[in-house]
């Protein structure tokens, strides 16, 4: 029987004096899955990751990795490896020595550790630059060096703290795909902290949405987007209108609402703003008592029958597209 390599958080809590950053979080990260922790800044996602890495003392609760309790172990004894937001490459060491650093700390001989470092650098296509210093590399290359350094110890799980936030948007999408590919190749779990919805949806097998130190929802990207558990998730993940009636609260995706003729249950609205987004057009409308909704329509159908700002129309949706939200 193979040992499970699940990461399990049991009532993991982080307190800074009076404030609770992470509030008794329970979470299971399945082995060899890509998991994103998504949340606004200050939601406790970074503290959670740093507790798993061992760079933050866990105030309460346990962290279990591959069947052993790692809550109080030093970072290097946990089987985790962390990739830092700003990459934290050693500026005085060459790329090769940066990657070999963890091996040097373990007392592995120079030739051996350089061979191992070169093997990983080849994997991230940086071998020709192995003798350079980090400040002679581009942001994307530095990111790959940091990744190689994190992988050199053969961790059971890789922890990534906003790994793409320092890159420009084009590179971000390219590296995002590389990360996912790498995760599949390595077959280990990636725990990736981000505040970007796109990133979480594109990468994750499991999306964990956090707010105020608690998990609001943990499910597949598809479910988080189509079945947000509550108003916070629906608003934070974006692309939803949260509509409140006397009896219930529900979310309707912005591309599942339509503007047009009056029908039963349709809301009278005024067009406030029209934004052209390339393939789609986003229309902001104002309903009764200044409630704002947004509607996204494919560009073709918009330009077939364009709306004018200030025009009055009706907002409607199919009943099956309304997803009820927990109060």
């Amino acid at each position, binding site marked *: 029987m193979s040992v499970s390599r699940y990461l399990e958080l049991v009532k993991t809590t982080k307190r800074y004096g009076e404030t609770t950053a992470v509030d008794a979080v329970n979470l299971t990260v399945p082995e060899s899955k890509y998991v994103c922790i998504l949340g606004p800044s200050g939601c406790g996602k970074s503290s959670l990751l740093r507790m798993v890495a*061992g760079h933050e003392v866990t105030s309460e609760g346990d962290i279990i990795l591959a069947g052993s309790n790692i809550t109080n172990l030093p*970072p290097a004894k946990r089987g985790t490896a962390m990739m830092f937001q700003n990459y934290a490459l050693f500026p005085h060491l060459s790329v090769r020595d940066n990657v070999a*650093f963890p091996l040097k*700390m373990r007392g592995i001989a120079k030739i051996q550790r350089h061979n191992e470092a070169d093997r990983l650098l080849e994997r991230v296509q940086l071998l020709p630059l192995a003798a350079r210093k980090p400040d002679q590399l581009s942001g994307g290359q530095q990111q790959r060096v940091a990744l190689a350094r*994190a992988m050199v*110890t053969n961790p059971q799980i890789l922890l990534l703290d906003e790994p793409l936030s320092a890159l420009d948007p084009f590179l971000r999408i390219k590296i995002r795909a590389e990360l996912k590919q790498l995760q599949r190749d390595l077959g280990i779990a990636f725990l990736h902290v981000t505040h970007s919805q796109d990133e979480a949806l594109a990468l994750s097998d499991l999306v964990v949405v956090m707010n105020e130190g608690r998990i609001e929802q943990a499910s597949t990207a598809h479910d988080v987007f189509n079945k947000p558990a509550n108003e916070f998730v629906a608003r934070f993940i974006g692309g939803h209108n949260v509509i409140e009636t006397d009896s219930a609260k529900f979310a309707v995706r912005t591309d599942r609402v339509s503007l047009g003729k009056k029908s039963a249950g349709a809301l009278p609205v005024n067009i406030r703003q029209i934004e052209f987004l390339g393939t789609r057009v986003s229309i902001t409308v104002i309903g009764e008592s200044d409630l704002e909704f947004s509607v996204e329509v494919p560009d073709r159908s918009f330009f077939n029958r364009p709306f004018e700002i200030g025009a009055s129309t009706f907002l409607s949706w199919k009943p099956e597209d309304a997803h009820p939200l927990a109060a």
Partner: protein
Amino acid sequence: MTAQRLSWLLVLPLTLVLALFLVLPLLTIVVVSFWDYNEWSFFPAFILGNYEYVLTSNVTWATYLKTLKFTLLTWGFCTVIGFTVAYFLAFHVRSLTWQIALFMLCTIPFWTSNIIRMISWIPFLGRNGIANSMLLDMGVIDAPLEWLLFSDFAVVLAFIHLYALFMVVPIFNTMMRIDKSLIEAARDGGASGFQVLTNVILPLTKPGVMIGSIFVVTLVMGDFITVRFMSGGQSASVGRIISNEIALLQYPAAAANAVVLLAAVILMIAIMLRFVDIRKEL
């Protein structure tokens, strides 16, 4: 006005100040070092005798050796103390308020003049001073220690007291600029506390150590007053030779000595700079 002229205009004031107060006096010293002198006056000439005397006299060589010894000892202790204090301030004191408060505490001795700080050692180290009477009372020694004051020990002690802060400040400054996530990354890679120190902090602090070393070396090499006070006139230093020659109105000899000292210090700094690139710190 063209941009180029404007930039020339902008550097003009500083150029004038430096030319007037640095380059001109230096040139004067160099020129005077070739002049001749007798018991009561000195006059323009072009002789190499001053240099010949400086470079061949045994006194010069012995004095340089002594000055070098003071420099090395002071530098060694200042580096160790400076690094330790800066390390404590930068990595063990967590709050910025405390860092600033403790840093200010380090500078308090500098609120009084060099001479006062030096002289204040005398009642402490003297034959019947505080140190000796304390040690006698505690029964550690039977007779007062003679080497505490007016000795090489006293000179080096005063130097360290005077110049340790010149080491603390630049090292503290470089340490504060070390990204704290580098230390976490090292920890993540399995480095022990000592390995973090030797593999990350020490290499990244080298430029600060070097800047501090330049301060300490130039200050000690050029010193004449500390050596006189603390050795009780028993030890010589290059600075003291120059000051004695000036007192005897042998300006050309003093100038030649000063030029040699300047060359020696520049050479030492040039050698030090070969090891560490400090440009990033400036």
